[in-house]
């Protein structure tokens, strides 16, 4: 495995779960709901997927199970913030902690267990190319699907009636309500969708990339996802770029250590986070552009009066 091949394939493997979860979070946030429980949702998805595969289920059923489990948990979040009008930030944090704890509890008998890796699906012809073949085109199918998912998310949000409804609810729930869009229903389904994506992403980590379960497996990646949506200024394309950039930054930080360049490794470990902070700072220096795209009602409780 050459350095470049490793960087390419490693970036895809590290970036894919972030991208999948972030695209789900994007849809949720587009409707005006800020869900901070991604870390917990990913953890629940990871253990559900792992248990499914351990007990003989296929990898696709595993990912589905992960998605459904996280969706169930996000339904609680949706109920609290949409029906009982709970504070989104506080509820998100609470559900996130619940998810992490729950995954540890359910996962106890599976701690440090492993599963076989998922079969790879090399792309015909392209996989035979030098360097980029093994780097980009010799992966499990989900890795190829993630960029397509970004494309689909972009298209749906931008050019379809569904996308318009989602955005309308996020921009001005009162106006959306007045033209007959069921605001709470739209938001609830967006929360479920975001939960499903986070669960699939968690499942990807436990059964596809790490191929093991351990309590605390997600190790902060859910928070990166939350930051990525901001980093990407609520645009699918930029979020995809950010997710892969984050993967690349992590790997470069590790790789540089082996080249003998004398940079403190703590600094390298923090590179991805520093990049995230810088990106957010730079973006916020153009407030108009960010504001144009940030859902106006994000994080606000919507109380339907009529």
């Amino acid at each position: 495995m050459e350095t470049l091949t490793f960087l390419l394939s490693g970036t895809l493997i590290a970036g894919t779960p972030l991208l999948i979860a972030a695209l789900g979070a994007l849809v949720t946030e587009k409707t005006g709901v800020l869900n901070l429980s991604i870390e917990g949702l990913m953890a629940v998805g990871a253990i559900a997927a792992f248990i499914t595969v351990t007990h003989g289920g296929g990898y696709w059923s595993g990912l589905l199970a992960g998605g459904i489990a996280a969706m169930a948990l996000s339904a609680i979040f949706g109920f609290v913030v949409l029906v009982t009008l709970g504070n989104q930030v506080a509820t998100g944090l609470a559900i996130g902690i619940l998810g992490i704890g729950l995954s540890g509890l359910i996962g106890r008998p599976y701690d440090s267990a492993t599963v076989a890796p998922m079969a790879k699906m090399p792309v015909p012809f392209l996989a035979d190319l030098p360097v980029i073949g093994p780097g980009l085109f010799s992966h499990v199918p989900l890795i190829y699907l993630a960029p397509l998912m970004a494309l689909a998310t972009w298209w749906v949000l931008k050019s379809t009636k569904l996308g318009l409804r989602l955005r309308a609810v996020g921009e001005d729930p009162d106006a959306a309500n007045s033209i007959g869009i069921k605001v709470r229903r739209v938001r609830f389904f967006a929360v479920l969708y975001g939960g499903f994506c986070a669960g699939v992403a968690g499942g990807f980590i436990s059964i596809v990339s790490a191929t093991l379960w351990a309590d605390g497996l997600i190790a902060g990646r859910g928070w990166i996802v939350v930051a990525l949506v901001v980093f990407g200024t609520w645009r699918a394309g930029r979020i995809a770029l950010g997710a892969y950039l984050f993967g690349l930054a992590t790997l470069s930080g590790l790789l540089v250590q082996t080249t003998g360049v004398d940079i403190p490794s703590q600094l390298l470990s923090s590179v991805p986070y520093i990049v995230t902070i810088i990106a957010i700072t730079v973006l916020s220096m153009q407030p108009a552009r960010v504001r144009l795209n940030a859902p106006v009602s994000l994080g606000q409780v919507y109380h339907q009066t009529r």
Partner: protein
Amino acid sequence: MRGKLIAALAATCIAGTAAAQELTVGYIYPAPVADVGWAKQLDLGREAVEAAYGDRVASVVVESVPEGPDAARVMNQMVSDGAEFLMLGSFGYMNDGLKLAQANPNVAMIHASGFRQTENFGTFTSRAYEGFYLGGLAAGMMTESNVIGVVGAFAIPEVVAETNALTLAVQKVNPDAEVKVIWINTWFDPPKAQEAARALISQGADVLFSLHQDTPSVVTVAQAEGVYVVNTGSDMSSYGPDAVLASVTHDWTDYFVREVGAKLDGTFKGGDERGGLAQGMVEVVAYSDDLSEEQVAMIKATEAAFISGEEHPFTGPVLDQDGNERVAAGEVLADPDIFSIDWLVQGVDGSIPE
């Protein structure tokens, strides 16, 4: 697992009400007891204590106790429930444990990896570097690319000493080999450990060392990528039947049994236990079948020499990365220097973060 928890709760009740046993021993682990890993090795010590003293001791176990206020609460509870012997399984339990030990002179405590001792507060640390020296011999013998990769958790003296020891061993059998180190700066992030392992493989490493990863994260990568690995903690060969070259394990059973026995006899005294191969605290197991009989024999001979004291992993001349002589020819690195080591030996490709 759940059964054990219930048993532990039941034991607490018994100790609190009837005091049926002579001694209640409390065990506090920083991580859940999985099939492998640090907490598992500590828990094997508990099993040995129970086997040795049977009905004379009762056990109370609390797992996954974060360092800080939670740990203080758990140990206070144990003591007020009648525990008179505590095993504190993580470095960060030190200050709370010391305070409690001071207030309760009748309670004996043993503490992992610490450096402060009192009459009723002892510490235990393993000389795992001796085991990694043996692993380094195996690595030096088996590498074909002459690149050894180390995935290190944090560059603390314990892990640095292990890295140095394995490097010296690699150089002894294979002067052409180089050792590359990646510090991942976390105790627990399995995906990151795996990324580091893959990064090292991409740099040509065909033998990996998994230093202080509690899960088989690096082992599974080694198995998938067809390289060898020497891991820490428990025998992980079942996770990488083709990959595990050797596992460096901790065995606390004799020490725990001895200390609990001393408490039962009324002779407990807080000491500073540093055990290696000779004391059986460190064991190297699961040698790969790919090692020839002669190679295993050579490793075993070194092990015997360490046990008898004839040889020492840090025997001079030892040069650091800048070429300064840190240990003169014929001398060995003194204990305090090993346990506070902050430099890497020549031949390590990597650096210690300031």
